[in-house]
């Protein structure tokens, strides 16, 4: 017979999850890790804003009104230059702003003034805008109609293209992918370690024995994984929201759609990756009895995640390499490698579907195995429990 096999309370894991979520939310280490994450991301974003990735942006001082400046400013779709107009009432004020660095150049009627130089894209853009305005004036004077005017005022009369397209905004997407994979790595590893150390805390304090008199070992493990995972997800959502808002505010990204999509990917792949790794972390925690032994027990899992991370950082340069493609499909590394390829536009739909399918199946297969190992090991203190013994103890 099997005592305790009859009757279960399927809701008890929620109590466990709620406790783990609540307790850790108030822990110093959680608050500190959130702040560190925010700080690192802020530095990355602000540095990028200063070094001026993507489309160059200029502040143009305009004295009075300038149709050419308005034309250039409104034709942002050109994608080669961005202009923000700073209006001045008189030339003196505009020149003062130019000297103090408030604007990059001053346009007063038809005179364009720079400090030491006039930035070339700004210069060319303004000349082109002024030229097209004059041509439009001539067409109207010659009796041309609106269609003729529209024909010359088309800001992109040439179809621009490249032989080897890197996808739109590849540079910017690379940055987003890098931040994403960095976050995912930190989050998967950090929260995995929390699961393992949470298991050890219950084991060393023997509170697990109290808990096991009210709840099955598997439910206890799942509750802990769920509670800590939810906290990780919430933290990630908070950090992503902060990062996107900051990036928009400092003008690093002008296509928030991609960043929001990438944030969604990071959240989704955190759930998948965590579902895969967390039960392994829980077993590692159950096998040892003291925090000091945890490092050793975690080495194999550590290594897998670290190698996946290194491959994924490599994928930023070459998302189509064979190793990267394999890594993005294997469940052991897909959580880090696949989102990079997706953001860089290199993953085919079938590859994504396959990797998600494999991760879900692997997690579904691992959780019951891990549950049994956990149940067999969590009551045993003293020396490190061998996997084989844990397996047989829970038979």
């Amino acid at each position, binding site marked *: 017979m099997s*005592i*305790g096999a009859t*009757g279960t309370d399927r809701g008890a894991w929620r*109590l466990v999850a709620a406790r783990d979520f609540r307790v850790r939310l108030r822990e110093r280490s959680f608050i500190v890790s959130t702040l560190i994450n925010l700080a690192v991301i802020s530095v990355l974003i602000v540095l990028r804003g200063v070094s001026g990735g993507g489309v160059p942006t200029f502040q143009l001082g305009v004295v009075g009104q300038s149709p050419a400046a308005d034309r250039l400013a409104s034709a942002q779709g050109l994608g080669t230059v961005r202009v923000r107009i700073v209006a001045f009432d008189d030339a003196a004020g505009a020149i003062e702003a130019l000297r103090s660095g408030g604007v990059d150049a001053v346009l007063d009627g038809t005179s364009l003034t720079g400090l030491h130089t006039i930035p070339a894209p700004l210069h060319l853009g303004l000349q082109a805008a002024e030229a097209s305005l004059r041509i439009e004036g001539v067409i109207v004077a010659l009796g041309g109609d609106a269609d003729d005017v529209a024909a010359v005022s088309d800001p992109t009369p040439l179809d621009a293209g490249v032989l080897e397209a890197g996808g739109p905004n590849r540079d910017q997407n690379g940055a987003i992918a890098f931040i994403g994979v960095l976050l995912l790595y930190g989050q998967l590893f950090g929260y995995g370690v929390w699961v393992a150390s949470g298991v050890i*805390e219950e084991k060393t304090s023997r509170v*697990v*024995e109290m808990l096991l*008199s009210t709840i099955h070992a598997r439910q206890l493990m799942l509750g802990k994984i769920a509670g800590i995972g939810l906290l990780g997800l919430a933290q990630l959502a908070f950090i992503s929201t902060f990062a996107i808002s900051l990036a928009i505010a400092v003008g690093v990204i002008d296509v928030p759609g991609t960043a929001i999509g990438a944030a969604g990917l990071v959240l989704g792949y955190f759930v998948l990756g965590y579902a895969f790794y967390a039960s392994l972390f829980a077993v590692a925690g159950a096998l040892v009895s003291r925090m000091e032994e945890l490092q050793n027990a975690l080495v194999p899992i550590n290594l897998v995640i670290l190698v996946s991370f290194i491959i994924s950082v490599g994928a930023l340069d070459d998302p189509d390499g064979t190793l990267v493609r394999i890594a993005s499909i294997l469940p052991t590394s897909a959580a880090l490698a696949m989102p990079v390829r997706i953001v860089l536009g290199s993953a085919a739909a079938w590859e994504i579907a396959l990797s998600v399918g494999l991760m879900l199946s692997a997690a579904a297969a691992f959780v019951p195995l891990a549950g049994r190992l956990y149940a067999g090991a969590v009551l045993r203190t003293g020396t490190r429990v061998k996997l084989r013994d844990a397996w047989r103890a829970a038979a």
Partner: protein
Amino acid sequence: MLELIGLHRRFGDTVALDGVSFTVPSGALIGFVGRNGAGKTTAMRIAMGVLQADAGEVRFRGEPVGMLDHRRFGYMPEERGLYPRMRVLEQLAYLGRLHGLTKDDASARGRDLFARLQVEASLTDRVEALSLGNQQRVQLAAAMIHAPEVLVLDEPFSGLDPTGVDVLADVLLEEARGRGVPVVFSSHQLDLVERLCDGVVLIDRGRIVANGTIAALRRSRSRDLLQIDVAGAADRWWEVVPGAALEEQTPGGVVLALSKDADPQRLLDVARAQGDVTHFARVEKSLAELFREFVDEDTAA
């Protein structure tokens, strides 16, 4: 009443329990004694469903016990078990909810027990900040948070000061006498078991070697012991009485073991013929002595 029936459990090649059966009647306090490693903790863990038995059964009120029934039991593990960094009331409330209480009920019960067990601390203190004695009281509060229908306590008295022992003993007696809860606890403090318990279960090497009231255990031993002090008696004076044998030489006299057919009155007559009898009394063996005898017999067997 709680029944353990034919429990067997092995760990690898070690046999921890080899057919353990005993009963804890409702309203009774049962002491569970045995040497370290005899199987006490394993049996209690199985009774609580923390560990599975290889064979055998636990019944409560005649019904086999399942996980949802264990939630109505109260348990105090040997090495204790509380989250060190969680606050006292929060912890009690959490454990209460795992036992099926609502949040409000769990908190209210936590406060009551905190007062009843006279914990000298604040409800918002972290458990790790409490003295060991107070931690132990909180541990008992955790075991009783849901007004359990059974109490299974592994070494509840170890490490308590005399005041703590008294508070704990009073509470256990109240639970047993007042609410009719079957209470079983293990202990190495045999004098305490003797003082408190209605019955004793003695386990050795995974088997129950004695089970009953202490009086019954004493009676089950074939020999009576008499302490006799006689002034100026001759050497081996008792040998004229059939069935009397020397058990122990004491400073003022001797302790004699009498077989069932020996006549104490005849022994007294012989003693008085020797000189002034200053002491003549039956020696009640303490539980500790009985324990030693049972264990020695078991080891010799």
